[in-house]
């Protein structure tokens, strides 16, 4: 008779065979990068996510160097023709991966495709100031704008302004293009297995020269702990979006280093519904600001991986105004409340989503800090996908936490305008003087005067406490020793600049 234990011996024999295969180590010119999110599609005109991947497949007319200066890309030079016209000289001799030539027609095609109202491009707001792209000759184009647009070159340095090949797109259609894109960039897409990996291979004919790393594999690992584990085990050599509470694991590992981009992350703030009582009283808003010990939050809850600034813009933004860090004085806060007629405090709702580094814990601290000056906070930790509908719809709590940044424009305008101009979806500020300053800054072609207007905006926000800036997060990368990489302020990972130290 068979023993019921027979299969155990069989299993005991098989198990070690299954276990002996060890993760293969990266070849010398191959690199694996772990990302927090999985790419859905790779059409730069219709992106609904960060442009990290397409940034390596496509080029823009204007590029940013590692100092974040605007430098020539597919355009060699540009100039202002008149208040509503910019002219760009195109780089001759550049070809797309499929051999199609890059020319003025490709530029016009790229923008016409996004600006076409029927296309419903989700990225249209980044280029909405462009009214028309005019072909002057094969190597020259003119951009006509709806009004004066001082930020046009900066707009042309980011998505959706990546130049796409008209011939290939017409041939294969948009859906195919989104999974097998063709650009002029340093890398070609070799394999795209959704949710598992995306492999890129170097384009040897790249106009800036052949890239150093032959093959790059991008792996989406959404769980932060698993992402860090993949780095620690050597499966990946570079990982982005390292949360502050896991940074220690990387710092203490001799084979890895933590790359910290100071001010590379979002600036967190408390949005206030400042047209409703009791927040319509500037003294109340100042009292709330004085109740927060920002330095303690940064050092205790964020392990130091954040910086407290006075301004809502980032020091890396063009047009940043350096202001003293907001003070901490609960005594004075209580006095201000009493002056405003709230000596016994009041009750209010606050929302803090679990989205940013330790943000729910920061929310709990804030509720407690406000409690100490007599403001009773009922704290909600909303689910992110619900919260991001409440905020633009105006149905969020009177005090709400958000993180904001200038994304890839690195201009104070993007860090300020959408959350401060009245009538913008993400703004709950209603301040006529501020609106005027913001509007004038958007029309100002003179750079010096524009920076002055932006400075006045930042000053007014602080004077009136129209929102309460908390701190700016760092962005953290984990990098294997031997990999040459430096995190950038614009959060891009340009593979062209990557290499191995030998």
């Amino acid at each position, binding site marked *: *008779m068979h023993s*019921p234990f027979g*299969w*155990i011996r069989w299993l005991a024999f098989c198990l070690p065979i*299954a*276990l*002996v*295969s*060890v*993760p293969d180590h990266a070849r010398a010119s191959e690199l694996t990068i772990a990302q927090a999110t*999985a790419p*859905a*599609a790779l059409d730069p005109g*219709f992106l*609904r996510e960060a442009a990290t991947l397409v940034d390596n497949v496509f080029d823009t007319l204007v590029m940013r160097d590692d100092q974040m200066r605007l430098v020539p890309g597919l355009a060699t030079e540009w100039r202002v023709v008149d208040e509503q016209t910019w002219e760009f000289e195109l780089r001759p001799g550049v070809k797309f991966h499929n051999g199609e030539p890059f020319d003025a027609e490709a530029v016009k095609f790229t923008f016409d495709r996004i600006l076409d*109202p029927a296309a*419903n491009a*989700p*990225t*249209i*707001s*980044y280029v*909405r100031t462009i009214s028309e792209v005019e072909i002057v000759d094969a190597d020259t184009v003119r951009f006509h704008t709806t009004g004066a647009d001082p930020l046009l070159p900066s707009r042309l340095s980011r998505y959706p302004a990546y130049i796409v090949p008209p011939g290939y797109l017409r041939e294969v259609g*948009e*859906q195919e293009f*989104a999974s097998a894109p063709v650009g002029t960039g340093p890398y070609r897409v070799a394999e795209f*297995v*959704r*949710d*598992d*990996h995306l492999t890129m291979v170097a384009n040897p004919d790249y106009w800036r020269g052949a890239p150093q790393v032959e093959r790059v594999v991008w*792996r*989406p*690992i*959404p*769980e932060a*702990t*698993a992402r860090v*584990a*993949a780095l*620690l*085990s*050597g*499966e990946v050599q570079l990982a982005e979006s390292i949360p502050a509470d896991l940074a220690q694991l990387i710092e203490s590992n001799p084979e890895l280093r933590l790359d910290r981009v100071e001010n590379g992350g979002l600036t967190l703030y408390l949005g206030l519904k400042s047209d409703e009582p009791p927040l319509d009283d500037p003294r109340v808003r100042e009292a709330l600001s004085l109740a927060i010990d920002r330095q303690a939050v940064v050092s205790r809850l964020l392990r130091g991986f954040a910086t407290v600034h006075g301004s809502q813009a980032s020091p890396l933004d063009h047009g940043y105004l350096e202001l003293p860090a907001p003070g901490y004085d609960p005594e004075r806060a209580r006095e201000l409340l009493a002056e405003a007629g709230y000596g016994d405090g009041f009750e209010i709702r606050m929302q803090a989503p679990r989205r940013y580094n330790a943000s729910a814990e920061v929310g709990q601290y804030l509720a407690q800090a406000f409690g100490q000056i007599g403001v009773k906070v009922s704290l909600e930790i909303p689910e*992110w*996908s*619900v919260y*991001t*509908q*409440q905020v*633009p*719809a105006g149905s969020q709590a009177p005090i709400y936490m958000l993180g*904001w940044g200038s994304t890839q424009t690195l201009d104070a305008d*993007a860090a300020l305008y*959408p959350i401060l101009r009245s*009538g*913008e*979806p*993400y703004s709950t500020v209603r301040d006529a003087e501020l609106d005027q300053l913001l509007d004038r800054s958007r029309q100002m072609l003179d750079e010096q005067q524009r920076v002055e207007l932006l400075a006045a905006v930042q000053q007014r926000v602080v004077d009136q406490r129209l929102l309460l800036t908390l701190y700016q997060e760092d962005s953290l990368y984990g990098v294997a020793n031997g990999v040459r990489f430096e995190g950038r302020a614009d959060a891009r990972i340009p593979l062209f600049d990557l290499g191995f130290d030998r």
Partner: protein
Amino acid sequence: MSARYVVHRLLQSLLVMLGVTVVVFYALHLGGDPAALMLPPEASFEEIAAFRHAMGFDRPLWVQYIDYLSRLMQGDFGVSLRFQRPVLELIVERLPATLLLALAALSWSTLLGFFLGVVAALRPGSAIDFFARCIALMGQALPVFWLGLVLILLFSLHWRLLPTGGYGELRHLILPAVALGAYYMSAVTRLVRDSLIDALGQDYVRTARAKGLSEWRVIRRHALRNALIPVVTVQAMEFAALLGGALITEVIFSWPGIGRLAVQAIQNRDLPLVQVIVLFAAAVFVLVNLLVDLLYALLNPRIRL
């Protein structure tokens, strides 16, 4: 089993599915539409409104529902807002990974759970029984997100035996299958143990023993066979549930299955995709339930309607 019973159960299943479409549709749409979330933060109200209109989100909810239902009936499951591809295609693409993980997790957990359950039931109260019950308790008590991370820490980081995640080879499958199966292993252990102990006390077992059969034969031919029925039922249901995707396990191990697709869809408020994933999961569950019921009626003449 009468034809009337089959028709009755089929109609019931259809009704359940219709109910699911209503609940899913309204639950998702009451939370608001995804227009603002799908556009970049710099989008103006006009742009959001234009987009909302283009997507048809500004129509009354019941009109959108009727429209949705009629398209479903015609086999049009819609296009994912984020992926811009037909949702059915996305689900079919991820089905093999989910199927593989579900099969792997359920097969090892059934085998081991069955073994532990039998061993424990044969010597109730013994050290072996205690041990088996401890394992069963642990498997059910340890949350999968914790177990998954501990497995990664031990097998990927400490011993460097297995990858932390990914898909494609056997070594990628082991950790997620172990993490996911632990719970079911415990469930099977307890179920087998209890129903076997129960069966061993039944009259037919006493009769079999009285006939002079060997103890092992009594267990195998008489007790175990009867103890098996609830196990098969439970595992069939678990399998059906797992085909809807193992949300947490798939996210932790970067497993490209339906569960991870569902999590992404929810985070991005990709309504067409969320709807169809829920519908799909419900359909599989209803279908398996129906099959099990029909099989029961076929196997056990005592079940009649």
